[in-house]
């Protein structure tokens, strides 16, 4: 057990080293939400009125951060393809390390990187938007759950696909509808009945809602329901990623 933990930490450290050195990634991930809030949020703030009467700026800012966490997760899944292309994956696969440790290391690394990114951005956005961190545990669970689910999705795609281009395309096709139906840009309750049901079926909806509860103290669904759903989602995604990784990489 302690061996498996040590292996997971070794993989985790390697992934974090890579993330830390990827300066372009950090610049992009920090600049993008700030630009969206500054260029779109302020403009829409006076035009859009939420049914709750709350400020649209906070809704959008928290939504964009959730979007960022999701896309970071998709990027985390893509590292599997990058590792395959560089050949590094083979060096890992031939080492006496369980597939579970390899996958958990990847999942944890991206989750940690996203928690750090969100903390930094919340601190910046708190200056000029209503975003804060009234419920840190809820925000943390939401970030971890969204990350793990999207990295897992990436691992599943990554075991099938051989090129980064194909991965980007397919991941976009799968994730964009999930984003649009998750309440990132407008509350789910404002959607027409037909699409509202799709939103209810979208696990990301509960992630975004719990995340927003964490950052704004505002929620559409009961916190307990979202939290339990996300707990189950995290567990299922982790298992799914391990199984897909193990099966997909057999020759």
């Amino acid at each position, binding site marked *: 057990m302690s*061996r498996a933990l*040590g*292996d997971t*930490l*070794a993989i985790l*450290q*390697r992934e974090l*080293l*890579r993330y830390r*050195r*990827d300066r372009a990634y950090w610049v992009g991930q920090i600049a993008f939400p700030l630009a969206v809030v500054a260029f779109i949020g302020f403009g829409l703030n006076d035009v859009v009125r939420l049914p709750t009467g709350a400020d649209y700026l906070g809704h959008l800012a928290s939504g964009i951060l959730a979007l960022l966490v999701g896309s970071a997760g998709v990027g985390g899944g893509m590292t599997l393809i990058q*590792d395959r292309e*560089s*050949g*590094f*994956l*083979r*060096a*890992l*696969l*031939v*080492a*006496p*390390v369980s597939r579970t440790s390899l996958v958990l290391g990847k999942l944890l690394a991206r989750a940690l990187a996203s928690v750090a990114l969100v903390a930094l951005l919340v601190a910046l956005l708190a200056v000029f938007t209503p975003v804060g961190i009234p419920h840190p545990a809820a925000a943390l669970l939401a970030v971890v759950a969204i990350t793990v689910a999207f990295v897992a999705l990436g691992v599943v795609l990554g075991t099938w696909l051989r090129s980064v281009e194909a991965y980007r395309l397919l991941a976009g096709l799968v994730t964009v509808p999930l984003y649009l139906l998750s309440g990132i840009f407008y509350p789910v309750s404002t959607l027409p009945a037909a699409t509202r049901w799709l939103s209810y079926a979208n696990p990301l909806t509960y992630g975004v809602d719990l995340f927003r509860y964490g950052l704004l103290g505002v929620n559409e669904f009961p916190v307990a329901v979202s939290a339990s759903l996300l707990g189950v989602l995290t567990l299922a995604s982790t298992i799914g990623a391990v199984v897909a990784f193990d099966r997909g990489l*057999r*020759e």
Partner: protein
Amino acid sequence: MDASATTQPAAIRVEGLAKRYRAVVALDGLDLSVEQGAFYGLLGPNGAGKTTTVSVLATLARPDAGRVQVAGHDVVSEQAEVRRAIGIVFQEPSLDRELTAREHLDLQGRLYHLDDRRRRTGEALERVGLAADADRPVRGFSGGMKRRLEIARGLLHRPRVLFLDEPTLGLDVNARAGIWEQLRELHAAGGTTVFLTTHSMDEADALCERIGILDAGRLVAEGAPEALKSALGGDVVEIGFEQPDGCAAAELLARIEGVLSVTREPEAARLRITVRDGSRRLAALLEAVRPHVVSEVALHRPDLEHVFLHHTGHPFEPERLGGGG
């Protein structure tokens, strides 16, 4: 197989190994055995199945049929034990461009649970001459430096069996000589069984105590390089002609005393004759082909290329015919 082989289990034992990728048969009933501490070379042209063999031996590909044991463990049912016992240097690069040399070795040390990984990392970097570049990302390394790092990584945990898949492919002459030197030192130090694949005759000849010749997924010959060459029992004479029709002289030549075999290479307008006491019979051979205009004549001891030709009936690399060494 001598008596010691029965008390000491072979480092590698392969029986009836078959592996196909969709419709392509990569290995077709491969049998081989490598003793502990040996320096074994698997020689074959591109596509012969060398990399597939290494992939199966290193637990990265599952055999379709056959039994494969490495370091006394089955590669299918005892993967973890096999992985702990082996080191591997892949043909294609397998480094993370963003990590430094030291970080690669440190990760390796952690994954193999080495208590003294810091010391070993330092020693390994020193040994392969990368100490000065240890903290630079691999992105800026030359091909030779990368290969040396891969070798250092493959050896860090002191594996009982080291696999090297085309270790000098794509390297320049100096880098290649450096790697040969390191492999010789490693083997001289004893203990590690080295299993190397190569499509370079020179490499197999220069490094390996025993070689197996692989062609189309089967082992066609096996033995010490010298033994394989002298088993051909003669010298090789190559006669090149101005016109391809010179090859018609083959039948005449075959009747000359001492001639063991004659192979036609019509595309190159050349005959390759295996003959006893080549230097004494050269005049007779040339006399026999006289109506045809001879453009070149070469006489040499058989090399591994001739061994390959003899056992497979086709040249090793068709485009490089008759280089002779």
